[in-house]
Each structure stands twice: as C-alpha cells, then as structure tokens.
C-alpha cells in the first residue's frame, strides 16, 4: 500500500475526531462533499456530523472563533485555504491566541493548519512560506513536517499540546510524497530534529519540502564527489532543536541552512545565529544560508524554479562551503 502526505493528514484528523469529542474542524470549503481545496477533509463532514464546519471567507474571524471555542473548552483544528491567506489571521493568532497563556494563564488548544510553499504556477499569493512570520511571536509552536509519517504523527501531537500550534503542510508534498505507511512505530518526540542522513563533510539543516531537495543534492554529491553530507530535518522550527544542530556541526565543522522562505529574518538566519552564538568554535568555515530570493514568488514555472532553492543550488552551495 502506498499513502501520501495528505492521506496522512486526513487520517490524523479522522482519528482525532474519533478520539476526542472536543475536536472539530473549521475553515473555508472544508465541509459537505467538497472536502477542502486540497481534499484534506473529504468525507469527514459525513462521518462526523456537526463537527466539520464551513466558515465564511473571513480568516480573522475564523481564528477568532477558534480562540473563543478553545476558551470554551473545545479543540479546534482550523484550515486556512492557503498559508498566504493565513496572514490575514496573523493578528488573531499572534496578538490574541499566542499571548493568551502568558496574559491569563489559560493556554488555548488550537491547531492552525496551513497549506504552504510553492508549486508550479502558484504565483505570489499561493506559494509563500510563513513559518518565520508566525514563529516570531512568543506563544506558538510551529511545525513543518517533511515526511508522511511526520505529517501524521505531528498533527496528532499538535492537538495533544495545549498551546496554539501552527501546522505548515507543504502543498508540493501533498501528493508527490509517498510512503508505505503513515505509522512510525517509534516516532521522534516533538521538539527533536532528525538526522535524516548521516555524513561527515558538512551539515545541511533544513525543513519541509527542502528536505527531499536536500536529500537529492546529498545523493548527487555522494555519487559525483564522494562528499558525505549530514542532513538535519528540523521538523519543528519552533521549538528549534539547537542541540541536535550543534552536535551535527561538531561532527562536520561546516553548516549550510536551506529554507524555501524569503531570506530576511527567516528560520535559516535563526539557525545560523544560534550556531554562531553557541558553536562558533565548532565551525571550520563561515556558516551559509540558502533561501528563496528576496523578491515576490513568480508565476511562470521557469521563474519559480529559479526563485527557490532546488537540489542543484543546494549541491553547488555545499561544494562552495567545502572549499572555504
């Protein structure tokens, strides 16, 4: 049997609805026979009557309603149609939900699912990565799963965690990424980064859809140059597993951070800052970043491919890093 990344997300939501009557799904076009723009919720409205609710096109109010429902003891799972539109809910998520625990002592159990990242033809407003934007604010956890098993396990964990969780699902991975099963018999706990591929010449820290791109680059480097690249999948960008990153850098002495997000003040910058602050003595070369261009995401597939990092860029950046 082969299952996809989005199958795993669907399965996690079905189980969460089954296991806990406080869980409900809320978002645009997710109910009825339609089942969401990407079909993540297809069939769930029939299976769980009254617990999969369509919302008006009102991202701010969708999040606000989720906040109110969480205050009232529910565990809403919100779907934004695209992460780009989730920016309209930034105020409610970051000024209201995220601040709530510190202000009042009551954590809010809200999971905000957002399909993020680029696909060919997506253009400026259906392609963006928003993890750094949301992670900037205190009071949220930000998950960026890169595997089918993590998509399943981390979504289930997101609802177990009593705080607001931003769950960023990469659209490119939805149907492209496949596995035999979504079940990982021994999943890594939330907050731990994963060494996806061990290596000794350089560490590449990455997350979300850049994990498979980086693995492709690592294969190529191994085949063509004999370089063994250690690939670290952050899994959660907040909390960020600095210990695993530093341990890897201690082994390799070199660091490249790859992100699909815009470069300014992003997760890549955060990782480089942490390694520079806490592990400068471990580095044999300056730490490097590879991100998308500091420019809106273009529509044409040729422009789009040249806008975001891909495996050839990553391999070239590693080759450069190793010369330093």
């Amino acid at each position: 049997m082969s299952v996809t990344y989005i199958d795993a997300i669907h399965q996690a939501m079905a189980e969460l609805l089954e296991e806990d009557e406080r869980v409900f799904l809320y978002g645009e076009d997710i109910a009825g026979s339609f089942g969401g723009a990407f079909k993540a919720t297809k069939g769930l409205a029939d299976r769980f009557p009254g617990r999969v609710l369509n919302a008006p096109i009102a991202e701010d109010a969708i999040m606000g309603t989720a906040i109110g429902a969480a205050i009232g003891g529910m565990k809403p799972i919100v779907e934004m149609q695209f992460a780009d539109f989730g920016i309209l809910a930034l105020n409610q998520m970051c000024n209201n939900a995220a601040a709530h625990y510190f202000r009042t002592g009551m954590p809010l159990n809200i999971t905000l699912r957002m399909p993020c990242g680029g696909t060919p033809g997506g253009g400026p407003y259906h392609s963006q990565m928003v993890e750094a934007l949301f992670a900037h604010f205190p009071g949220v956890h930000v998950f960026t799963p890169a595997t089918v098993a993590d998509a399943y396990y981390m979504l289930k964990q997101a609802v177990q965690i009593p705080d607001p969780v931003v769950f960023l699902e990469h659209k490119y991975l939805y149907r492209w990424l496949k596995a035999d099963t979504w079940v990982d018999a021994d999943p890594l706990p939330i907050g731990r980064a994963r060494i996806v591929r061990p290596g000794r010449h350089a560490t590449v820290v990455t997350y979300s859809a850049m994990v498979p791109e980086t693995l492709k680059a690592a294969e190529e480097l191994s085949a063509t140059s004999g370089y063994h690249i250690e690939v670290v999948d952050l899994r959660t960008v907040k909390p960020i597993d600095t210990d695993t990153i530093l341990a890897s850098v201690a082994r390799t002495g070199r660091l490249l951070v790859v992100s699909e997000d815009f470069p300014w003040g992003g997760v890549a910058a955060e990782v480089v800052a942490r390694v520079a602050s806490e592990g400068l003595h471990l580095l044999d070369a300056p730490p490097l970043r590879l991100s998308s261009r500091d420019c809106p995401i273009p529509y044409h597939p040729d422009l789009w491919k040249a806008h975001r990092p891909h495996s050839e860029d990553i391999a070239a950046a590693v080759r450069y890093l190793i010369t330093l």
Partner: protein
Amino acid sequence: MKEAGIRAYRAMEMARAFDTKLSALYKAGKMYGGVFLGRGHEAIAACEAVFLTKGVDVYNPFIREQAGRCAWGYSVLESARSYLGSAEGCMRGRDGNIHWGVPADGNPAPISHLGAMVSVVAGMLLAKRMQGIQGAVGVLNLGDGTTSVGATHEGCNMVAVEKLPVVIVVTNNQFAYSTPNEREFACASLADRGRGYGFTTHECDGTNFMQTLATMQKAVAAARAGQGPQWVVAETLRMCGHGEHDDASYIPAELKAAFADRDPLAVARRQVQEQGWLTAEDVAAVQTECVDEVQRCMAQAQKEPTPVPAETDWSAVSWKPSRY
C-alpha cells in the same frame, strides 16, 4: 425589572466613583500607563450586563464598561488590581488597565485591537452550542469607531451566519478618539449595519437609564429565547477624553451643551426615585457606599505585592519539549 434596575443603578454609581478615583490617581502620577474612563457610558454598560449571569453567559466589556463589569458581578478590586499591576490580580501585572478578564467565567480578556473580540465571543457561544449547553447568551461592546474595523465586519457576519445568541451593543459616543461620526461612517444610522448583517436591531438613548434598561432587557431576552443575534445602538456622549491624557478639546461646545443635562448617572438617580424604587436617602446611601468601597479596594490593591521579574515564569507556552 426593579431588582435589575437597582443593581444596574448601583453598578453605575460604583463605576463613576471608581472613575473619579482613577482620574485623581492619574493626575497625581500614581498610574503606570493610560487611564480610560466610562463617563457617559454607565447606563449602557450597566444595563447590558445586569441581565447576564457570570459563569453561564458570555460578557465582553471593553474600554468604557466599568459599570458593566460591576453589574456582571466583579468587584472594583479586580479593576484596581489590573490598573495597578497587582500580583494578586487575574492578569498578575502581565496585562493591565481595561485589558483584563477571567475567561473561565465567560469573560474573555480583550486585546487592544478593536473588533477582534467579536469572533472570540462567537467562538465561545459556538463551543456552548457544540457542547449542548442551552440558554446562554453573549454580550459584547463596540464603539462607533470599532464598527469601521475589518475584524468587526468579519465577526458580525460570523455571528449572523451561525445565528448565535449574541447581543452586540454599539455605543455611539460621537467620537472615535478624536474622530467625529462623519469621518467614521457614512450610513444614516449604525443600526443599518446590524440590519445588513441580519441582526434584529434596537435603538435607545443611552443617556436615558429607564429606556436603556428596557431596551437591553428586550434584546438579551430575545437572544436567550433563540430569536437570533440582536444589535443595539445606544447613543451617548463621551463625557471625558479618550483617556485622561486627552482633554477632548475637539468636542464642540454646542455638543457638550446639548448633553449637559443628560449625564446618565444623574438621569438614573432621578429615575430610580421616580419609579419609587429608591428614596433620596437610599440614593445618597448608595453613593456613600460606593465611594467607600472604591476607597477600600484601591487602598488594598495599592498595598498588594507587585510582580517580581526574577520570580516570574516567562514562558509564553504551557508545553515544552522534554530534554534528552
């Protein structure tokens, strides 16, 4: 009506006494930040809250609803603690002035962003519906300025679409900070907005205590009886600046003159006697009791410990990953 009327009147006296004390402390340089009074809003706030039950209903007062907080059942001690940042208060000095609430009581802690709480109240009522809890209503306040905010529109539409038992009270105090009505909205009446969303609308003179009491009773009863969302527009004049830092010199003298004999508290004192609910002696006794109560509460809050930075749990989230 008599019992509710007397409680509402007493809440108005308590709020005015509290405001007077706050203003004095502000002028004496004893307050940390801004001080925001509810002079002119007392009848509206007290009458909207006096028909609610703490722990059953949802009440979301905001900047000028001290009288509502009193009518809902909170001591002015909690308001004093919020302003003074007492460690004993529900916000523990982490938030202050009018930004306080006890979400578990059905009283969410409002954020500064106007309009954001409309959908939060909607969510709290939605949670009750999903949990099979019947008979609860929610009351929340908007000002004339708040009706211009995008989040307000999204939230009001959400309330209407879900047909939630919510009473939205729009207090038109003629000025959004310094901006008069004609620069804030262009519809003939703010009641038109409620009608447009699909609310049942009511209008009252918010300086006329008995009229306001009757209007709020009707609106809250209709929401509680399942007649859908209710929209009350109550007219008054803000008898103070936006905050005590603001001399409100932009309010034209003619407008002040037009409201000169319409101080809602003075009207209420007269009307409770005209109704035969209280005697002149009773009214004088209530005033004395309220001033004494405010004095006691403010003195207690001033004596209470303030938060200690070194002893503060600075965690913005309730959950942390386990270390390994």
